[in-house]
């Protein structure tokens, strides 16, 4: 099962329609969280928003997550040891306030278990080899601990 999620802040019709068409052509199963999108999926099951418990159930059932390039879904996918494909929103298409998702794409692609696409072709190329996509084995930890420890120290001084 493929789980597509675009966050709660803005719609992302382009991503939803690409995945919906692919799922239709390839007879795959999928669930989409589409926010305020105008495009209504024909092949994916969909909801605009879902309570966290439902969201987590889909996340855990999914073999692959496809998402806008937002940190929430990336961190959650890493923690669930599920591979994730992210596509950046484009400011020029009115998909976000700025292009920080594009700025982030390069480093996101270096994270284990995270795959990036900025076009439909790149997305489909990844989907065609979906069974080869690897999940991260463990979330990186030492940098997070260092930051938390510094915050602790900074509060106390």
């Amino acid at each position, binding site marked *: 099962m493929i789980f597509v999620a675009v*966050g*709660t*802040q803005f719609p992302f019709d382009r991503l939803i329609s690409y995945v919906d068409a692919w799922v239709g052509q390839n007879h795959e199963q999928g669930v989409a969280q589409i926010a305020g999108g105008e495009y209504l999926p024909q092949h994916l099951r969909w909801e605009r*928003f*879902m*309570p*966290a*418990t439902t*969201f*987590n159930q889909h996340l855990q059932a999914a073999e692959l997550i496809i998402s806008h390039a*937002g*940190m*929430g*879904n*990336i*961190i*959650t996918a*890493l923690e669930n040891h599920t591979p994730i494909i992210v596509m950046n929103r484009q400011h020029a298409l009115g998909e976000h*306030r700025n292009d*920080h*998702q594009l*700025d*982030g794409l*390069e*480093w996101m692609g270096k*994270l284990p278990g995270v795959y990036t696409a900025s076009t439909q072709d790149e997305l489909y190329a990844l989907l065609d080899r979906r069974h080869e996509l690897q999940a991260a084995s463990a*979330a*990186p930890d030492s*940098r*997070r*601990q*260092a*930051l*938390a*420890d*510094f*915050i*602790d120290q*900074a*509060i106390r001084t």
Partner: protein
Amino acid sequence: MNAPPKLLAISSPGGHWIQLTRLCERLEDRYSIIYAMPNTLFNSAATLGGRKVYSITDVSADDKWRLIPCTLQVLYILLKERPQAILSTGAAPGAVAVWLGKLLRIRTIWVDSIANVRQISRAGRLAQKQADVFLTQWEHLSDGQSVLFKGAVL
């Protein structure tokens, strides 16, 4: 034994909140943490994980008028809870908290979202002069003085 110091952790929902809570997990044994976040339909007890979370009005660059209720709510939380420090990962509600923290002489710590790779976030720039400690999660954005790099959630 003294009670652990109180920390107010505040952010926008979504990625900011995920980053904030992942940092706070590492601080929960050392602090009594109070949370504040704009409430949305999708937050349930599961997202919040049993944490004490004040709901505040969401504010962003697109709807500045909401600054007023948001500011009043954060002020109320600060006066009621009297935290020793404020920690935020952004965005606008965190900047509000940092400004109020400065006024009330509460120590403030900003961690700019890891999503901001090329430059400090807009809300971060608004908070930068007021925050006591200003952190980026990218070494190349640090100047070693006013913007520090000390680690990252990933």
